[in-house]
């Protein structure tokens, strides 16, 4: 094998590695497969670290290290970075929302001094990361996505743009920083990680999934994990959770029960027949019959009703009046409810439909006190650097405990004497009761 390595030259080829060896050589290298199409040995790009042995064209293209002074870190951030370094620069750092994951990522880029690509899930986070890096990073920061195509030594890219281009740029970066890394491990997005040669990889998340899928292979194992309660009261603000149980009106109750009965008539027998079927599989099967289509329409109506019934509207209004002097974030189950609240209470919505510039202006005005509240269904869930807010009102939720942890983290930015409050509005005798229970259990764990 040593003899073979001495003659080996590794070339990046559209998301893979081509090993220029004679065809008679044995395929002894891990992950390497004979490719009859080009009569050469081929390996996935992410295996470069294991295959390389000395200088090669890819190493030359990545270039040498040029470290720069990292930003100051809190003790737990420094520990996280150290744990990642001890694991040979691979792994997942799991810190609660508001605990400063971005800073750990920036420090990793500074410390390694390698060309780095930061992957983010949304355009909002794209520009937020660029702003964070611009403050400390020597040289201009590249942007890939949201209409930009500017590759630099340190570049921030949306997941989608990186996925489309990694087969052509996968040999340019020595470090991948993957923000909100829980989006990876189980799907097509993984292609972006597989087609990169980057030997150093840092995944950042507040909520690691139970099943990490291919994340340990493509990014690394969990090297640090802290929960909200590990930092609340010290590096995160202390908080109170208040669950408010509400009732539907009589007319709403009747409509809800009718719709749920229509839904259960189809969904119940399907569940018995196919206990492990997923929701998309049920939806596909249901859409083929009249009863099924009625069931799908009924569950849509029921969910729409639960998203913002009369009682929630009344309680929300009184909570807004009570906390008028405090910055408040309102979370809804869907955009439709967010817009209803925006229209009725005249509160600025932050959704995917609101453009980047307008969102940035709104967040600045929120920080400056010109806006007292914001309402959102999903955009505020992940990563967005929301200015100090003290009150969170969860009007509706669809994505379980992970989403809830992220939402609560939005109001935990520490400040002197601050004690945040999180209101959860739950409608009695509906599916929301079960969801709230699951959230509580998960949070306690």
């Amino acid at each position, binding site marked *: 094998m040593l003899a073979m390595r001495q003659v080996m030259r590794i070339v990046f080829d559209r998301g893979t590695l081509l090993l220029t060896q004679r065809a008679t050589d044995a395929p002894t290298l891990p992950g390497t497969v004979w490719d009859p199409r080009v009569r050469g040995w081929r390996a996935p790009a992410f295996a470069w670290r294991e295959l390389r042995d000395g200088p090669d064209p890819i190493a030359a293209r990545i270039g040498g290290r040029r470290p720069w002074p990292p930003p100051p870190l809190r003790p737990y951030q420094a520990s996280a970075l150290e744990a990642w370094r001890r694991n040979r620069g691979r792994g997942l750092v799991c810190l609660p929302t508001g605990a400063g994951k971005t800073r750990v990522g920036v420090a990793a880029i500074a410390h390694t001094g390698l060309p780095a690509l930061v992957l983010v899930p949304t355009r909002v986070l794209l520009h937020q990361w660029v702003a964070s890096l611009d403050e400390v990073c020597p040289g201009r920061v590249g942007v890939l996505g949201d209409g930009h195509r500017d590759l630099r030594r340190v570049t921030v890219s949306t997941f989608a743009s990186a996925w489309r281009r990694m*087969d052509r740029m996968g040999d340019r970066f020595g470090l991948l920083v993957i923000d909100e890394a829980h989006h990876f491990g189980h799907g097509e997005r993984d292609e972006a990680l597989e087609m990169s040669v980057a030997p150093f990889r840092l995944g950042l998340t507040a909520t690691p999934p139970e099943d990490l899928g291919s994340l340990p292979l493509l990014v690394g194992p969990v090297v640090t994990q802290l929960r909200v309660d590990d930092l609340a009261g010290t590096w995160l603000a202390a908080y109170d959770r208040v669950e408010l149980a509400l009732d539907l009106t009589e007319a709403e109750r009747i409509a809800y029960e009718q719709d749920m009965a229509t839904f259960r008539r189809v969904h119940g027998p399907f569940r018995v027949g196919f206990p492990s079927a997923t929701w998309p599989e049920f939806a596909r099967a249901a*859409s083929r019959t009249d009863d099924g289509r009625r069931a799908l329409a009924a569950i849509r109506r029921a969910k729409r009703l639960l998203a913002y019934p009369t009682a929630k509207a009344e309680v929300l209004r009184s909570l807004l009046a009570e906390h008028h002097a405090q910055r408040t974030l309102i979370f809804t189950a869907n955009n439709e409810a967010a817009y209803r609240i925006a229209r009725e209470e005249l509160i600025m919505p932050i959704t995917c439909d609101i453009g980047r510039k307008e969102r940035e202006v709104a967040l600045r005005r929120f920080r400056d006190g010109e806006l007292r*509240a914001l309402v959102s269904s999903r955009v505020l869930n992940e990563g967005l650097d929301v200015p100090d807010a003290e009150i969170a009102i969860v009007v509706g939720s669809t994505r379980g405990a992970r989403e809830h942890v992220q939402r609560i983290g939005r109001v935990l930015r520490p400040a002197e004497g601050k004690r945040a409050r999180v209101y959860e509005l739950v409608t009695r005798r509906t599916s929301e009761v079960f969801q709230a229970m699951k959230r509580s259990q998960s949070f306690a764990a």
Partner: protein
Amino acid sequence: MLPEGLLPRPDDGPALRPRYLRDDDLPWLRALLDVFRAHVGRPRRELMDRLREPLPVEGPPDKRKRAVHVLERLTRRRVKAAVKPGEARAALFGARAKGLTRDEAIRVAAEALEVEPTGLLESLFADLPGERRLLALPADLGPDQLALRTNLAMVQGLVARSQRVTVRAHGGARDLVRHARLMGLLCEARPLKAGAILDLSGPYALFRRTLVYGRALASLVPRLPWCDDFELRADYRLDDEARTLVVQPGDPLFPCAEPRRFDSKLEARFARDFARLAPDWDLVREPLPLEAEGALIFPDFELVHRPSGERVLLEIVGFWTEGYLETKLRRLRAASIDRLVLCVDAERACGRSDWPAGARVVPYRRRVDVGEVLAAITPRPPGTRPCRPREDR
């Protein structure tokens, strides 16, 4: 390209042939188009509400969903509002945050923006996807074209979920190969009696299917109808089930714009000049591919001398190096092709002294001179035999 949820499932029809939209689907497609056109100028939300109701002529639900998806992609929208929605939001929500009541905030913001309060409220979210007004559909979009576009989107969605495809192509193989390479695909080609068999796959296909290269494979589909004859076979996976798709001539698919006839303006100009200045010769644009050292060569042109039947292959080479020309000539010699002329750009790469020995090379500067080409190909040197296409040998 249709998303996974809209693709046909195993019980939707035979394994190899998807259920295309055909003539008997045109009545409900026409009704669907009528609904879309009736909502031009209206908010998209109203159209979506209408589409939840039955059409005057109802079609199969799965097919209808696919057609609606394609129509949605073809529909453009615009914002209609008394005041820019962003300005309306900034003014109104800012006023409310100052502690004004709802009515006071509306009045203050409306006065600041010089609009009526109702106009202000209507403008508030006029830029949301559901509130945007629909613009007219393309005038030439009829039910027949909608059927073809929907079929194409369906086939592309299936091909995108395949690891590799095999295309048997005659007349047009060259364009497919060129496009495949442009998309980063690997192309293995084998000659056929007529045309070639192309095995196309992404570099990563050795390890697993990727959607990046799946989409590249799918981009080949609208080019197929431009081949004289073809058959595409794609093994794809859907819901963890392996299936095979076959696409053949006559399948109702929407074609892309006609591929360029020539690779460059240089080639186009040469073809034009040659037709004018060499009346005894015919110029064949895409001669049959030739096999050489396990690879297929697609010569740019074949020149056929009508009186004698003599055939000469001609390649126009832009950027080149000595090694490139050596390899090219070696392959041609290996295939017993001795009647070939290489036209090489004298302004690029190396000079005349670097040309491989024995090569029949016509240098050019910006324009291939037909006279020099004719001088190079006539008369045929003694002892050489005419070049013939593969099936003639």
